[in-house]
């Protein structure tokens, strides 16, 4: 097999552009989500651009941190956002192939998410605060619960595609193989479940649980650091969502690079993200948070879906 996509010289500028673009629109989607919530509460709420205003204000403020905190705490917002940007370069967003083939592999992406989780968790332990420590612990536990669902779902999709590279899976789903319909649908549902948990929304907003943990690992952040962290967390939601959409809803993405195809794909990807965020907001505002120690019972459902996908693949293949 040949790997022309690995260091694809024509696509790497696109990789950087899409990472920066996702970073730029991340607060917009967070704002949209806020507006949705206000509407569902029958409130007017602030406008869509409020997140930008918040972040701009925070970025101009001084950061104050507890005396016990060190470099791990201070560098986390940048490392978190940077790690997510690396993933963002590798996602299929407007092109079917991953623009950064060097990292556009299933296993690599899952372990890059692990890097992000690791810096998030150790920053939580670096302050000596109870809330940040518990938030870090919950973040790590949620990782243990989600990882099997996400991996099995994506693995089955990769088996249908015959490759673990993201581009190959997208391309296979685009040319939908009818005989594997059930398998792909079940795998997609399992991944949707895992994606939803990874987005940290209710009923799974464990690490940052607003009422009981006061935003968990974010508790001690303030000023510019908090501003960067806010961008980073909304970027995380967008990246996780785009990973799912890029793999399971590749419709309209550019197979051949022409300006028109890229334009259509760009607009379509925004529309897809908007619809997804809308659906997520609907779910988020109609449920109550789970009790943390009982979460594992709920996540079994997701794993069950992924396992059914595997069974259907075994039967079909």
């Amino acid at each position, binding site marked *: 097999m040949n790997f022309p996509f690995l260091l694809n010289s024509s696509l790497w500028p696109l990789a950087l552009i899409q990472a920066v673009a996702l970073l730029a629109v991340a607060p917009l989607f967070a704002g949209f989500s806020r507006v949705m919530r206000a509407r569902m509460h029958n409130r007017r709420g602030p406008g869509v651009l409020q997140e930008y205003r918040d972040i701009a204000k925070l970025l101009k403020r001084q950061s104050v941190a507890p005396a016990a905190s*060190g470099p791990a705490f201070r560098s986390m917002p940048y490392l978190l956002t940077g790690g997510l940007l690396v993933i963002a370069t590798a996602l299929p967003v407007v092109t079917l192939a991953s623009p950064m083939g060097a990292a556009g592999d299933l296993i690599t992406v899952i372990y890059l998410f692990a890097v992000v989780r690791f810096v998030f968790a150790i920053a939580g332990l670096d302050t000596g605060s109870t809330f940040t420590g518990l938030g870090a612990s919950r973040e790590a536990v949620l990782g243990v619960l989600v990882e099997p669902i996400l991996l099995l779902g994506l693995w089955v999709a990769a088996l249908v595609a015959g490759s673990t590279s993201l581009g190959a899976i997208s391309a296979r789903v685009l040319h939908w193989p009818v005989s594997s319909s059930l398998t792909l649908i079940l795998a997609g549902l399992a991944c949707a479940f895992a994606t939803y948990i990874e987005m940290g929304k209710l009923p799974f907003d464990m690490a940052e649980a607003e009422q009981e943990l006061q935003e968990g690992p974010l508790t001690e952040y303030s000023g510019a650091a908090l501003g960067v962290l806010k961008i980073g967390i909304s970027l995380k939601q967008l990246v996780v969502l785009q990973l799912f959409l890029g793999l399971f809803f590749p419709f309209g993405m550019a197979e051949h690079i022409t300006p028109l195809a890229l334009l259509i794909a760009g607009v379509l990807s925004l529309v897809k993200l908007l619809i997804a965020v809308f659906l997520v907001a609907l779910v988020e505002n109609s449920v109550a948070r789970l009790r943390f120690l009982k979460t594992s019972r709920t996540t079994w459902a997701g794993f069950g879906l992924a396992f059914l996908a595997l069974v259907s693949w075994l039967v079909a293949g």
Partner: protein
Amino acid sequence: MMALFALEPASLLALALLIWLVSGVAGGVFSAAARLSGLISGLGGMVASAAVIVAAFEIVHRGGAVQAVALPVLPFTAEFSPLNGVLLLAMSVTALFCSLYACAWLAGTTSRKRSRTGLLCHLLMAALTAAAVANNAIELLVMMELAALCAYFLIVQTDDVKSRRAGLNQFLSGRLGTVCLILAFTVLHHVSGSLDFDVLRHTAFPAGAKSLAFLLALAGFGLYAGIIPLHAWVPQSHSSAPAHAAALFSSVLMKIGIIGIVKVGLDLLGAPPLWWGLMVLLLAILTAFIGGLYALMEHDIRRLLAYHTLENVGIILLGVGGAMTGVALNLPELAALALLAGLFHLFNHGLFKTALFLGAGEIEMQTGIKDMEKLGGIARLMPWTAVAMLVALMSMAALPPLNGFASEWLLYQSLFQLSAAPLFIARLLGPLLAVGLALTGALALMCVAKVFGVTFLGAPRSKAAEEATPAPLAMTLSSVLLAMLCIVFGVASSWIIPHFAAVAASVLNAPVLQAAQHGAVFSATSAVSAPMVALLLLGMPLLPWIIAAVLRGARLPNRLRGEAWACGYGHSADMVVTATGFTQPLRVMFGPLYRLRQHVMPAKLVSTLHQGWLGAFCRRLAFIELAVLLVVAFA
């Protein structure tokens, strides 16, 4: 004697063995002079290890078929093959840095400990080096037995209840392992009439004898490698022995067990039937998962690391089992990729685990504490140790672009090929094993976050932790250099993997698998470029930093002040989340699996076993056996 000065692998090995023995004894003789004795032992160990590294490079580089070579001066015939070469390399790189660490450690301990530890460690390394290149079963068994006894005496050296128990466990399981191996080779001898590996390799065994011998050998080598449920001796023994000896157990002694399984399963007995491969795969995932799970609940850093060694033994065996399955299913590409992944991970594990044990040893030496609950805030006091441990921990959790990721990525790819194999059982097991590995990875991630967060970050939790000072240069250097190697073997993995691929091909008698090109590592189904990922991971955090820096302008600088927020109450040190608190949710969620330990090993049985007389009896037995074996080895 002149032959020693020719730089042939054989003479280098003989030289190394002699240096180990001589410098070990000399270090003991001068044990009254602390610095001198430490220097003799440490430098001797380093020179010997360096000699073995050079020899191992030549053996791997030479490649090709297995050769029997008589060592000069010593009455020992060695077998040189690329597989032995890789094992020698993995062992001696570890030993090199352990010796560097020992230079400083030996100088700082009591004279009695100095003479014993120095000699025993050197004897252990010499015996294991000889075992790695043994060309018949008797040599292999005598040397492994010798090494296991050295390990026993290293464990019982700290004379407390825990160490005595650990020593007894190790002694009993070691002897049981030897008995299994003797039986295994008796079966083979019965059929072939010989114990030479070369004869065994060319004998066609009947299926029954073959399987019986394999099962016995798997149990025997499994006891050395610590496959769960044969791991009873592992955790506490790593905590009782001195840190560099624990590193040697983990990256050298247990590796002999794994290579033994590779040798018996893939090399000596001919093509393995499918069920061998599947059995090894299942044992491997069990070992990896349970090892990772139990590591989470440990507070003693070294016991925790020992459980992680079990986890990694499982991961390596996933590669070995995958290779056996690949051979059985006649899928050469799967076999080559899986064995490549297993061998590469074996090597990588030696690097990061040794760095971790040595780092833990530094902390213990500077604070006198093994329990991480009482540490905290060490990163500011021992910055270099902290950085080295951080890199090694991240590498243990397989985070890109470090070396643990490079080998696990290959392993995932081989599991993917297993999932796509035509046989139903392989198609079922492949995805489930991958899920098991991912789950283990997530547990490992949580565990390393715990170790680093609780030990190195936050505020100190005890007086001793507050007063820690950086460790002596030689010690710090040993773990820092290993951490650097972890980075090199991860980022430059695409240039290193072809060498391991050649070794895997020589074991399997197959064409060399092309798995790396132009800075990228690939399998038939995907690819990753570690240098590129490293570059992105270094570059991308700059973007948010620049945004923040541009918008900030001339505002007030960042400020560190006061205590953490505690809902308006005064903050006190005992509010801080401990290692126990951090992992509490998993203790609840995986409760049944944690209770398993009590059900499987009833406390009553254990306490009967550990009544005084048995321990004392075994100690005498060990003395006698060690003396007899030394005489046998030199005769």
